């Protein structure tokens, strides 16, 4: 009995996805490859010069650590503010919690720059100078909704049954919080961390708008290098940012799973 290959009358399925693949390869894969290419090659020959620069040049090293510090600071503050808000909206039984959530989300639809413009003008009136405080404040204010949403979703998604169960087992309100709600909300916190940290560490505009000479960050450096067409060094910075983001994803993922498991009354 001969078995011939069935005529793939059904192969249009691949044709459908073809434009997508062409587009993504052109606009994502190729550019990323170019990034690596420019980072390691200069005038056609392999070189570590750019990497060397990144790790040894005092300016770039300072900027690297400063970026990590500022982004971390801003993210932590954002989460500290977002968590009570999300917790309150999810558990305190507000009648229109969805509307309040909407109020927090709406500014996200106003162009980031316009929002920042408004903030800077306000700073001008109040008398807040450009610098670290202004920068961190701006980052927190701009990305707060991104921190609130995942925490809210996770907490409100957490079945009330868990809270009731732990109360039933004799936990007082503080214990209910620390032993049940908090651990179960860790995935949300981790998501919030990722959503705020990523733009925070890579921002250029906010640095330029609200920062001063002492708050230069990676995004700013990349911008300058791009203007000077220093593609090699700029590529290295880009890759550094890439690695930082990937690491953040991995870490938050890990912590998210572990945090979830550490729930329970003891």
């Amino acid at each position, binding site marked *: *009995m001969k*078995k*011939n290959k069935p*005529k793939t009358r059904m192969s249009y399925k691949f044709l459908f996805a073809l434009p997508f693949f062409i587009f993504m390869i052109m606009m994502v894969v190729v550019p990323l490859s170019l990034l690596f290419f420019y980072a390691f090659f200069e005038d056609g020959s392999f070189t570590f010069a750019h990497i060397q620069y990144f790790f040894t040049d005092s300016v770039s090293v300072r900027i690297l650590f400063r970026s990590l510090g500022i982004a971390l600071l801003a993210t932590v503050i954002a989460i500290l503010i977002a968590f009570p808000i999300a917790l309150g909206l999810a558990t305190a039984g507000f009648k229109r919690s969805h509307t309040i959530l909407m109020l927090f989300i709406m500014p996200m639809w106003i162009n980031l720059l316009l929002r920042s413009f408004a903030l800077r003008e306000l700073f001008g009136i109040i008398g807040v100078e450009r610098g670290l405080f202004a920068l961190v404040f701006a980052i927190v204010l701009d990305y707060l909704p991104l921190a609130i949403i995942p925490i809210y979703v996770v907490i409100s998604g957490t079945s009330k049954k868990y809270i009731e169960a732990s109360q039933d087992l004799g936990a007082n309100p503080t214990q209910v919080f620390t032993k049940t709600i908090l651990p179960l909300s860790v995935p949300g916190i981790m998501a919030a961390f990722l959503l705020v940290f990523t733009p925070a560490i890579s921002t250029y505009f906010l640095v330029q708008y609200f920062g001063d000479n002492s708050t230069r960050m990676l995004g700013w450096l990349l911008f300058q290098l791009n203007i000077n067409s220093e593609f090699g060094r700029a590529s290295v910075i880009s890759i550094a940012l890439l690695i930082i983001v990937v690491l953040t994803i991995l870490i938050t993922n890990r912590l998210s799973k572990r945090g979830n498991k550490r729930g329970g009354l003891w």
Partner: protein
Amino acid sequence: MTKEAVKKKNLETIIELKNLVKVFGKQTVVDDINLKIKKGEFVTLLGPSGCGKTTILRMIAGFEMPSDGIIYLEGTDVTKIPPHKRNVNTVFQKYALFPHLDVFNNIAYGLKLKTNPRLSKAEIKQRVDEKLKLVGLAEYGHRDIDSLSGGQQQRVAIARALVMEPRVLLLDEPLGALDLKMRKEMQLELRRMHREIGITFIYVTHDQEEALTMSDTIVVINDGLIQQVGTPKQIYDKPVNAFVANFIGESNILGGTMLEDHKVKFLGQTFRCDGKGFCKNQPVDIVIRPEDITILSVTDKNAELKGTVISSTFMGTYYEKAVLANDYEFTIQSVDEVKEGTEVGLTIKPGDIHIMSMETTINEYETYMTGEDTLEISGVYFQTAHAIEKTETGDEPFKKGDPVTARIAFNHVEIVDDENDGTIGGYVTQSIYKGSYYNVNVWTDNDTLFIVNTPYEWDTDDRVGLIIKPENIIVERREETEEE
């Protein structure tokens, strides 16, 4: 069978599946299916989940391309024709109604697509209304799909398919999502519609009760192969193998031996039965329906078996009892309530002991070599191409008088019309349709049974000839037993 008879049979056939195969990755889901479906029949493809029945249906509809084989619709090869060009329509298990259209437009969807000839609005309305009436939803045209119950949605799906006036209506477990009462109602409805419209229905289900209730013909499928084709009564009364017997209705299946015609031995006892045409001492499967076993008092002389009642469960219209007799647990259904632990006697009418061939595929004969490469079976000399024996000292030919076992596979025997064209002649005593072939018993004048798998239909009592090629006779030395 004459040529005219063959032609006549083909005229009645509306769908023919020839050597149909479907392979998904490494799994062969449909394995060489051959089937002819007659015009106007209500045919059910019946089998457990995963047996391939839905895949067969989808290949007929055109949603799957066969890996091999041909599908004929009214004589035309439609295997490569896409589904929108085939004149068959499908009723899906989950209805697949279009939620953004109302009932009327769902049914009219296909009609609006017709181009030769184009249908006018009035014509479309007329046909849709007609079908709405047929399925009992006359005033529902403007309703939204999600406002209908499951049963109503199913009827819309049926109307939508029927309004296209297909040659064949395919139904893929259409009643699966309905509750029991609705299901029974719809079964009768479908039967009624089939009678009224008269087109061929091909129905797929795993529910054997459903199949028995609704079908003209049932095709039992398992593991991608056709097990048996027949009317509901045939399938129920004369299951051809253990699988069919087990799948259809409750049954007690035992292994046994046909001692001779009308005499079968199982559970260490001999029983009278109707089975005949089997080899002497041929191992067989026996099936006895639970309602065919009668419980008697343990002292009754008519009781062929004695046993103990292990359990008795009330099932609404009867009691289902498990009785342990001769180490076999019988399932018995009857209206009498018997207490657990009671010793009882069992009797079975000879006609209710159904004999089925076991799933062997090779004819075996104990005989002697009559020469270096010849042997005798049933008084006739056969040549074998396998006359070399592998021994410790090397390859050696057989000698005259060597005791051997000759093995001939069922499908290696060829049946010919004219006895003189064959090596040996005999009468056809049994023919079981297995879909891709007929399993035929041929008895020679010497009372030797040849079981043959043949693609052709042979009638009982036909006088035929058998041809067996030398390379198909496998010969193996056997140990002489003391009796010989």
